[in-house]
């Protein structure tokens, strides 16, 4: 174990003395978080949502009133479907609701048509989330028709685009250690440094454990620095009123570290197969970019097939878990299925990575 620790210290020295490398691992995620924060902070934009209400009963009007009370929505009435569609096509509204006659919260799925401009990822997610939350809240406890009145307290809508993006940037920062692992290991192999160490009593397992330890330190520093910057730009974890979020923040760090182990495993597999450093770095990006696009880092994939494929990426589990923990105040244990999934992924990826690396380097 002492050999692995000595190797980890050596790795950290080489990383921290290479300014370009250091910028890539720490500076770039910090810069990205800063830009995401600046782009999405501040008061949420009010999205214009058009509607045509063909129902004359009390529920539909109250449904519209509740939506209008949400800060991020501005409800605009249209007299007919044609003018609503025209406004949508012209871009003056980003979403539309058509409420049929006989609307009832329980039967909302059959009596409400809803469409949204999918090209605006943030608008799409924010509006969908809000409409679904309010509709579900009404459907969950529908009052008798004759006594129905709006709830005393406004229905809490927890969606916050900054929080959504911050979590994605956090997991992205951790996932780029795939590049770091593959690059550094392939470089050591290319330059004969790994062979030189193998002429000493160092085992391959010592070498890989040292690599894992140093990458975990880098990931921890990435997570802390990115999280600190997110705080500066206005990110605040959201929990229930009065809830102490310390545990959730620590839980998010734990998830980030499990994700780091998984990424090191993925990196080892790539490094084992890559013939040289250039190939290793190229293949890393070939993995990191689809991971970023498909695993809900900055948007959720819509296509069902892509949603299924996204589970091959460890970031899919991490995004779901961290987003629930930090952006919706979910208790850690309620995310156990994602956490178990991520932990199993990390264990398998690391063991497979070690096995393939050992086989390929013998």
């Amino acid at each position, binding site marked *: 174990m002492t050999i692995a620790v000595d190797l980890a210290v050596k790795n950290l020295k080489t990383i921290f003395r290479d300014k370009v490398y250091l910028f890539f691992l720490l500076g770039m995620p910090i810069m990205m978080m800063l830009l995401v924060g600046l782009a999405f902070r501040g008061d949420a934009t009010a999205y214009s949502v058009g509607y045509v209400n063909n129902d004359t009963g009390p529920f539909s009007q109250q449904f519209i009133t509740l939506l209008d009370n949400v800060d991020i929505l501005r409800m605009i009435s249209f007299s007919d479907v044609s003018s609503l569609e025209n406004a949508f096509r012209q871009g003056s509204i980003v979403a539309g609701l058509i409420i049929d006659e006989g609307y009832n919260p329980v039967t909302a799925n059959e009596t409400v048509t809803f469409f949204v401009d999918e090209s605006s990822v943030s608008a799409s997610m924010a509006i969908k989330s809000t409409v679904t939350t309010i509709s579900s809240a009404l459907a969950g406890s529908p009052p008798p028709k004759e006594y129905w009145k709006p709830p005393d307290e406004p229905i809490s809508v927890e969606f916050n685009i900054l929080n959504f993006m911050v979590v994605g940037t956090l997991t992205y920062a951790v996932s780029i250690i795939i590049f770091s692992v593959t690059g550094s290991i392939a470089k050591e192999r290319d330059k004969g440094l790994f062979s030189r*160490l193998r002429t000493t009593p160092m085992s391959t397992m010592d070498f890989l454990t040292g690599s894992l330890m140093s990458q975990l330190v880098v990931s921890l520093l990435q997570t802390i620095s990115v999280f600190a910057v997110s705080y500066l730009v206005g990110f605040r974890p959201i929990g229930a009123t009065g809830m102490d979020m310390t545990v959730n923040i620590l839980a998010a760090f734990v998830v980030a570290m499990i994700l780091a182990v998984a990424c090191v495993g993925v990196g080892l597999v790539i490094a084992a197969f890559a013939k040289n450093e250039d190939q290793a770095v190229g293949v890393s990006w070939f993995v990191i970019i689809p991971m970023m696009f498909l695993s809900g880092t900055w948007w959720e994939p819509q296509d069902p097939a892509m949603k299924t494929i996204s589970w091959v990426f460890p970031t899919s589990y991490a995004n779901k878990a961290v987003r629930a923990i930090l952006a919706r105040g979910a208790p850690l244990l309620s995310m156990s299925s994602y956490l178990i999934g991520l932990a199993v992924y990390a264990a398998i990826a690391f063991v497979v990575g070690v096995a393939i690396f050992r086989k390929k380097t013998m």
Partner: protein
Amino acid sequence: MKQIQYAIEATDLTRKFGDLVAVDHINFKVEEGELWGLLGPNGAGKTTTVKMLCGLLSPTDGTATVGGQDVRKSVDEIRRLIGVCPQEPTVYERLTGRENVKLIGQMHKMPKAELKKKTDELLEKIGLAERADDQVITYSGGMKRRLDLIMALVHDPSLLFLDEPTLGLDPAVRRAVWDFILELKERKKTVVMTTHYMEEADELCDRVAIIDYGKIIEEGSPEKLKEKVGRGDRIEMEFSGNTETAIEQLKRLKFVKTVATVENRLVVVAEAGVLRLGEIIKTASRAGTVGKTSLSENTLEDVFLHLTGRRLRE
């Protein structure tokens, strides 16, 4: 009668890479405390042999023992015994010289105080003490090579593998490295050295094995090898004319040991060549025109030329 202890014994040692036979059933023994050289041109199989002995490559066929340990079965034990200086400078450029040396000592689990003492001592001896705390990225090629040597020696191994230890070094640094290797010899370290510099093998090695196309084609002390070609002087003449006739006529001279051609030159090894230079030139002139001529002592280069018909650095 004292029994000879062998530090290394190779039996039919072979390594193939696909269809290419890099090392082809070689057999040799290296005595304890001996400085043994593997001399051959680039691509002859020298580095592959060293890699098999260090446990970095598994033999395809045959086997070897290093310090009594089988390279197929006891790689971990072998790695505790050996120090290796690879062919290319192999150092961490973002670490300082001292940190590089310390790292190898740590891999050998040396006690801290001993490691520090040994590191300081070697850095001082090899002339890197002043720059020991600078990052290696600022070192020259010669400094990196010297650092490589220190890294191979820090844990005081009983057996050293030096793979082309002076490759690419300027003459002054090469001389310093030679002195250091000779010092190791005095300290009775077993040293296996590969080189394609014949003067290096000649100057340093107790015994030399000449390897070509993966096979050991001759082995012995430099003196004995040179005797096989024929002890004498080496006369190299620029020549234009009928080369075959010139060779034939030169070979008829009783004092001529060997004759070979290298590009446009005739290379003649002759007994007391200094005294018979005139006769040699006169004989060659009958078959063509003799130009610039040089005279030197017989070398391992001539042995290689005699055995293969090629020069070492062709």
